[in-house]
C-alpha cells in the first residue's frame, strides 16, 4: 500500500516475510535525463543504507535495514510507528517544543561526532516514536568531518524551523543548539555556528555583486 509520496521515493507499507515493513523505492524522474537519473538514484540508495547502518552503530535511532535491491533502487526497512516532528512541533498544545529540539540537537551532535553528515535535516525526516526521535532519509548524507558540511547540516534544519515552524523558531533553534553543544562541546559548536553564518551570508548577499562586476 502506498503510504507516502516523497520527493525522491514512493513509500509502501507491506507485509514482508511475515513482518510489516516500509519499502522505499526511488522512482525514476521523468524530468532528468536517463544517465543522470540512474546514477543519482543508485548512489543515494547505497548511501542511505550505508549511513543508516553506521548511524545505528553509534546509537542513533533510525530504521533497521532489512534488505536493499540496487537494481530496483529499493530499500526495505523497519516501519517506525509514530508522528513526524513536523506535525508534533506544529501542534499548538504541545508545550515541550524546546525539549524536543534539544534532543534533536543532541542527535545531530552525535552524528557529527561520528563523522556522519545527514544532508537533509528537516522535520519531515524525523519521527517521534515512544519518546524517541528516529532519523530517516539519509540519501543525501555523507561521511565527513568538514566544518562546511556540518554548517550546512545545521543551516538546513535552521531554515526548516524558520519556514515551516516560524511561530516557534526561536525556542526551537535555541533548544537545538543547546543540545548540539552538549554533544560536540562548546568550542566545536561555536565554530560550526560561525560557519553556518558564513554560508548564509555567502548565498544571500554577495553572489550578484561579485559576479556581475567580474
Amino acid at each position: 500500500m502506498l503510504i507516502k509520496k516523497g520527493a525522491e521515493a514512493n513509500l509502501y507499507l507491506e507485509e514482508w516475510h511475515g513482518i510489516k515493513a516500509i519499502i522505499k523505492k526511488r522512482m525514476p524522474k521523468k524530468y532528468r535525463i536517463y544517465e543522470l537519473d540512474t546514477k543519482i538514484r543508485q548512489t543515494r540508495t547505497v548511501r542511505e543504507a550505508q549511513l543508516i547502518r553506521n548511524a545505528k552503530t553509534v546509537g542513533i535511532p533510525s530504521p533497521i535495514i532489512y534488505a536493499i535491491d540496487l537494481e530496483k533502487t529499493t530499500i526495505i526497512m523497519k516501519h517506525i510507528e509514530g508522528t513526524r516532528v513536523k506535525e508534533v512541533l506544529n501542534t499548538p498544545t504541545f508545550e515541550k517544543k524546546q525539549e524536543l529540539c534539544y534532543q534533536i540537537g543532541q542527535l545531530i551532535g552525535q552524528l557529527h561526532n561520528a563523522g556522519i553528515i545527514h544532508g537533509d535535516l528537516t522535520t519531515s525526516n524525523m519521527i517521534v516514536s515512544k519518546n524517541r526521535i528516529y532519523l530517516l532519509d539519509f540519501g543525501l548524507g555523507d561521511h565527513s568531518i568538514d566544518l562546511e558540511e556540518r554548517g550546512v547540516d545545521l543551516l538546513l534544519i535552521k531554515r526548516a524551523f524558520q519556514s515551516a515552524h516560524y511561530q516557534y523558531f526561536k525556542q526551537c533553534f535555541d533548544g537545538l543548539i543547546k543540545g548540539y553543544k552538549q554533544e560536540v562541546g562548546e568550542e566545536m559548536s561555536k565554530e560550526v555556528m560561525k560557519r553556518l553564518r558564513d554560508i548564509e551570508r555567502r548565498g544571500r548577499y554577495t553572489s550578484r555583486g561579485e559576479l556581475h562586476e567580474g
Partner: protein
Amino acid sequence: MMASEFICLGIESTAHTFGIGIASSENGVLVDVKSVYKPPIGAGIHPREAAQHHCEEAPSVINQALKEFGRKIDSIDTVAFSMGPGLGPALRTGATVARALATWLNKPLVPVHHAIAHIELASLLTGAKDPLVILVSGGHTTITAYAGRRWRVFGETEDITLGNLLDVFAREASLLSPGGPAVESLAKKGEKFIDLPYVVKGNDVSFSGLLTAAKKKLQMNYDLKDLCHSLQEVAFSMVAETSERALAFTEKKEVLLVGGVAANERLQQMISEIACEHNANFYVVPKRYSGDCGAQIAWTALLVHRSGIEVKVEKSYVKPKWRLDQVTIPWRDVQNCL
C-alpha cells in the same frame, strides 16, 4: 473613469533594466516600457555603467510610457520604485527619478521589494492563489511559500544564482548578453550529455562547482552546443529536485515559476512535471513579464499602498541587500498555515 480606480506609476532599476510601468487597480497593467543595458560581449554588468545607462535612458522611457498611457499625468495617484535588492548605483538612479516624479506630481512615494514584485505580477497574470514559488533570475534562486504575513524561504542557492550561472558561462563562451537565451538556443541543438557536478543539499542548491567545471570543459574544447545542453540539464534538474522536495514538504497545490530564467522552455517543462507528479497546478509567468520590468513594480505598489505603506522622500534610501523574507506582507489574505 471610475472614482475608485487607483493608478500607480512604477520604476524598476535594480540591475540591467530601467523600466516604467503603469498599473490600474481596476484594469491591471496599462503600460510597460523598458530599456535594457547590455554589457559588451565577454563582460559582466558593471554597476556604475548600468546606472549610467539608466540615467541616459530614463527620459525617453518615461516619455514613451506617458505617451502610451494617453491620459493626463495627474491621473497618476502614486509613484513607486524598486527599493531593493539590487546593485546600489542602479537602484539609486531609479530612486532619484522616483523621488523627483513624486515631488513634482505631489503624490505619495511607495517602496517595493523587487522579488515580491516578480511574484505579485505573476500571481495576477496567472491567477495562482497560494503557490509554492520558484523564483529564478540573475539575483535570486529561491523556493518560497507564503505563510503568516511573510514569504518563507524553503530553499535557495548557497552561492551563485541560476541566472548568474548561465550568464557567466555564456560570457566565458563569448555569447551575446543576456546569457540565458543564448545558452537555451544552443542547448536545443546539443545532443551529447557531458557529465558535470550535480550538487543539492536538502532544498538548497550550489552552482559554483558546476560553473567551474563547465568553464574548464569549455577550455578543453568540448562542443559548445553539448556543453550548453548539459549545463542546462544538470542545473535545471537540481532546481527541479529541490523544488520537488519543497513541494512534497509543503503540500502546496500550486506551483508558480517566476523570474527571468522562467522564460526557459526546458526549465518550464521540468517544473511542470514535478507539479503534475504531486497533483499541483503549474503556472508560469508570461514570457513578456518574466524579466525585470516596471509593470511588476507598478502593480505591486498598488497592493503595498492599499495597505497604507508609503515612504517619505527624504527617507527613501535604497536597500541593496533587502531580503525577501524580511518584508511583512499585509495585503495577501491566504488562509493558510503550513
